[in-house]
Each structure stands twice: as structure tokens, then as C-alpha cells.
């Protein structure tokens, strides 16, 4: 009996520690998406001048909002490409997009209330600007990369 307890205890300890180790590994995620998200956090936190406490609360609600937004978008993804759509399918797709837009707007309104409780309405406006500026910066880098690639290809020809 005591041997069984010992085995169960050891197993529990090992699984708990592996769980916490996995959590640590998660924090060291180095996929492109994870790196860009970290950079976004850094960029927006600086632009909005968020305190540690504000940043913690803000980013928790932010990721919750993004998850819900993704769920709605996934639900309304078209099953077929435009070429394979009949008129009826196209009509149904357009109507479903209106429905999706409505749900996304409602989500935005709900989360605006949460965001403004944390950072106030003025900084919510600043946030939308900062988010746009970040996206533009990412695209600027993307554009520069493409230009460099075109220049290289031009020289090689």
C-alpha cells in the first residue's frame, strides 16, 4: 500500500513539475508570430505609457478579446472559393458576413467597456492609433525586404 502511495506521489510530482516546465517553455516560444506579438506588446505598452499593473490587466483582456474575435471569424469562414459558389451560395455568404460584422462590432463594444475601465477612454483611442502604427511598421519592414529582394534579383539578371 505504501509502495503504491509512493508511486502515485512521485508520478504526481513529476507531472506537476513537467507542467510548470512546459509553462516556462511556452514563455520562450520563438515562432515568428510569438516574436511579433511580444514586439507589439512592447510597442503599445510604451506608446500608451502603461504601468506594470495596467499592462498586466490590459494584455490579459487584449488576448481574451483576440481569442473571441478569432472564434467569430473562424465560424464565418466561407466553405467554398468564389469560383465554386452558386448565386445562392454567394448570397448566403454575403448575408453571413453582415452577421459576422454585427457580432464583431458587438464584441468590440463589450470589450471597449473592459479596456476603458483599465486605461480610460482617451488611451483607448491612443491604443487604436498605436496598433495601426505598429501594423504600418511591420508592413514597412515587409516592403523593404521585398524591395531588397527585387534589387538583388535585378542585379543577378
Amino acid at each position: 500500500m505504501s509502495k503504491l502511495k509512493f508511486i502515485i506521489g512521485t508520478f504526481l510530482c513529476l507531472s506537476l513539475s513537467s507542467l510548470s516546465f512546459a509553462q516556462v517553455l511556452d514563455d520562450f516560444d520563438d515562432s515568428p508570430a510569438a516574436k511579433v506579438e511580444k514586439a507589439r506588446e512592447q510597442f503599445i505598452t510604451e506608446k500608451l505609457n502603461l504601468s506594470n499593473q495596467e499592462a498586466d490587466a490590459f494584455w490579459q483582456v487584449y488576448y481574451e478579446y483576440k481569442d473571441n474575435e478569432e472564434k467569430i471569424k473562424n465560424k464565418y469562414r466561407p466553405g467554398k472559393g468564389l469560383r465554386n459558389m452558386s448565386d445562392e451560395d454567394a448570397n448566403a455568404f454575403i448575408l453571413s458576413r453582415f452577421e459576422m460584422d454585427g457580432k464583431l462590432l458587438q464584441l468590440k463594444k463589450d470589450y471597449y467597456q473592459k479596456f476603458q475601465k483599465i486605461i480610460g477612454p482617451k488611451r483607448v483611442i491612443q491604443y487604436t492609433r498605436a496598433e495601426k502604427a505598429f501594423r504600418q511598421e511591420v508592413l514597412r519592414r515587409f516592403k523593404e525586404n521585398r524591395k531588397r529582394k527585387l534589387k538583388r534579383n535585378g542585379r543577378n539578371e
Partner: protein
Amino acid sequence: MKNTDDIKKELEELSPFLSKRKKEKEGFEVPTNYFRKLPDLIMDRIQEEETLSSSSAPTTNWLDQIIERIQLLLQPQYAMALASIAIFIMVSIFFFEQDNALLGANTLAEVSDEEINSYVMDNLEEFEIDLLMDAIDEENLEKEIESESSSDDDYLDNIIDDLSDKELEELM
């Protein structure tokens, strides 16, 4: 004596089997010095058993061996050392993460070009369509490259124009 002979005779007549058994020795005989040697005999037997059991221990179940090893690590002197190492690792991870946040690691400048390209291609929906087209349209990009290089040429021309004859001579 006569009585016993009579009895024997009678028994032989009644049951030959029993009369024969009677001739065998009764009970059992204790070897000489048996009780004097008994404690030593017992001690020898115990010692033999102990050596047998200790030599057969390593061949017991592998699970028991592992448990034994782990239990050894859980002895106070080892457990304290293990616990302090664990605490040290946890504290260093905590400070490492804090440092990361404070030093402002993970800025966009630290994301490589390949990673930026892969992020944009995987998340096209995130970007405004006109900006995305502007960044993707090759014709537009070539025009921009051309105008950039011509403005570089203009810039060089202007510098050369501004140089005096002497400065130009030195440069050449």
C-alpha cells in the same frame, strides 16, 4: 521378567506385527552435547540466512531499486540540497523574465526579416488592404526603387557640383 516373557509370547500369538515393532528402539536418542552446541548452531543458521538475503537483494524488482534510490534522495540531507537547487532555478527564471521585460527585449527591430515576412504572409487579414497591395505590387516597388536610385544619383551630382576644382582634384 517371567511376566514380560509371557506377555511377549501372548502378543506374538495375537499380533506378530506389533510384537516385532516392540523390538525396535523406543523414542529417539539425543546426540551427545546436543544442548551445549544448540545456541552455536542457531547463531550459525541465522548468519547463513542473513548472508543469503543480502546477496540476493540486488536482484530484486527494478521498481524497488528505483524507489530505494528516490527514497535515498528524499533523506533530509539530500532533500535540503535538492530543494535549494530547485529554489535557485525558480528564482533565476523569475529574474531572467523580469530582466527581459525591463531591458525591452523583443522589440520589432529584433525580429528578423524572414520572421517579419513569414508573419505578414500568415496574417494577411490583419493588414489594411491598400497598404498590403502597396507593399506587394512589384510594379509599384520597382518604380520606388528607380526613383530612389535616381535621387541618389541627383544627390551625388549636387555634391560634385558643390565641390571646388581643388577639392575635386584632391578627390580624384
